[in-house]
């Protein structure tokens, strides 16, 4: 057995990279290619639709790729935007407030709460934690009526807060942060405390940088959630509604607006992807330089 291991090792060492074979790489590549195509197809379609002139959008059987690309759809969209009742910049500001407030607030609140749950003992800890899990399980489609009653009871109906505040308390973010914080060695926190760091300082300068991949991931989810929120349940004033709502109105405009709505779809899909790419490149570089040595 030992000998076999040795020969294997020698075999692998001869290659520059450990544990890689040509066949394995090819297989992986093919597999990833297939899955990747599966996943990318809808987006490719969305991107191409946005560039199609009207007659190609209605072509049957539909083609994936555009033949005569135009930017007409986008200019149509801008015309529609300028025609809207509330200035379009208003929708954009609303979205920035709701999405930004919901995402930043949630990441902060969830991480703060997750730290003692992961690293501290206090009475009632297990109760709090089981409530988190239960709250995640309970499907919020069913509790829409109580939710609405609570929002109006707080008098934050028809206000940004109706969307932002509940978003801070999603159980999933807390759960995710707690799981990642548990992995940080206690000795790291202990040494910071010995050096006289306050509890908040430990959290902010030791814990948070160490779980940067986790909270960036959380930010990606939350951004995604908030971005998709039309707010039609709580926001009645047109001037408070987010971009998503305005865009859906355009899309719902029917056949005559098929071109503009294709551009809208592209736009809706593109922003979260850009956000993801921006965060993702940061996730990559974090852990390798952190001070986790045992």
């Amino acid at each position, binding site marked *: 057995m030992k000998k076999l*291991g040795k020969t294997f090792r020698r075999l692998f060492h001869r290659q520059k990279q450990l*544990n890689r074979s040509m066949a394995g790489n090819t297989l*992986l590549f093919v597999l*990833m290619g297939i*899955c*990747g195509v*599966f*996943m990318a*197809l*809808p987006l490719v*379609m969305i991107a191409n639709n946005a560039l199609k002139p009207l007659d190609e959008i209605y072509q049957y059987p539909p083609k994936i790729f555009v033949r005569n690309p135009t930017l007409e759809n986008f200019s149509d969209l801008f015309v529609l935007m300028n025609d809207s009742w509330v200035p379009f910049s208003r929708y954009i500001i609303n979205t920035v407030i709701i999405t930004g407030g919901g995402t930043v607030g949630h990441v902060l*609140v969830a991480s703060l*709460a997750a730290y*003692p749950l992961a690293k501290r*003992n*206090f009475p009632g800890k297990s109760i*709090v934690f089981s409530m988190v*899990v239960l*709250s995640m*399980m*309970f*499907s*919020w*489609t*069913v*509790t829409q009526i*109580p939710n609405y009653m*609570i929002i109006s009871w*707080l008098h934050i109906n028809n206000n940004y807060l109706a969307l932002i505040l*509940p978003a801070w*308390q999603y*159980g*999933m973010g*807390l759960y*995710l942060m707690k*799981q990642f914080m*548990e992995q940080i060695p*206690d000795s790291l926190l202990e040494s910071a405390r010995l050096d006289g760091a306050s509890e908040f300082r430990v959290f902010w300068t030791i814990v948070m940088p160490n*779980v940067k*991949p*986790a909270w*960036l991931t959380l930010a990606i*989810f939350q951004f995604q959630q908030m*971005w*998709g*929120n*039309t707010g039609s349940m709580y926001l009645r004033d047109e001037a408070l509604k987010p971009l998503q709502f305005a865009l*859906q109105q355009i*899309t719902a405009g029917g*056949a005559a607006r098929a071109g503009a709505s294709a551009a809208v779809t592209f736009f*809706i*899909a593109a922003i*979260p992807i850009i956000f*993801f*790419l921006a965060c*993702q490149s940061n*996730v*990559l570089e974090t*852990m*390798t330089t952190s001070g986790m040595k045992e």
Partner: protein
Amino acid sequence: MKKKKRLTLTQKRSLTGLTFILPWLIGFIIFYLRSLIMTVDFSFSTIEVNPQAGGYNQTFAGWENFRYAFQVHGTFKQVLTTSIGDILIDVPLIIFFSLFMALVLNRKFRGRTLVRAIFFLPVIMNSEAITAALDYSRQQLMGGLTAASAEVMEGSGGMSLDYYIDMFGSLGMPDMILEYIVGAIGRLTDIISASGVQIIIFIAALQAIAPSMYEVAKIEGATGYETFWKVTFPMVLPHIITNLVYTVVINFAESEIVTLSYSTIFSENNYGLGSAFALISTLIVCLILVIVVGFIQKRTFYYN
């Protein structure tokens, strides 16, 4: 205030712990716990909407809604078992697939960011906004590309699937396993598109493993296989639990039973019964989750 006792160190510490949790806890109690309690309350009562006066009348009904759900309601039990069965089939597949994909995507290769972005796409595609937008464009395309490709997949997949079932059946594979695999193949698209978030969580978990561990493993002469089972897998195990919980939650939220309770509430206006449906199914899924997580947790290695 003068009489205030000095707190012991442990008390002080637990107090700081509480202050950290407080912002979350207050919001949680206001927004979530309250609506949870209200739903439980509704499930034990009969709700009648009062259009003239506005609001609703609530009368206590005891276990009536629960009795009705199990003994009288036509489809509840069947929908409940199928949705729980679906969860039990889908969740392990999603976990394995996403762990595998995360391992692959965590390697260094050219164009990694692009590939990762592609695998994140389904998460975006699953969002409400995109689904709505896609639905519109699909309508406009008169069953456009997405539907067409789905049809093609189904058509060709269906044929070869039967062939494979026959083949493995004649080899004497147990029916249970066979059905599971066949089901899995049928769900392939669902599974791929449902594992975007899980892949990201696993990638984040893999990033969190200290490189020095791999270095040690390399110096000690571990093979890739050994490194995976002795270093990567134990370090990722806590996040298998994370992903398990996440996947169950998401799958459950989209399951038929939730749709049933939703339609009972909003189309049949039977708020009490719908709440009871939601309560029963949530409790069952919670129970399963607790058992499975407890099982894995015992085998989990935590750093300290």
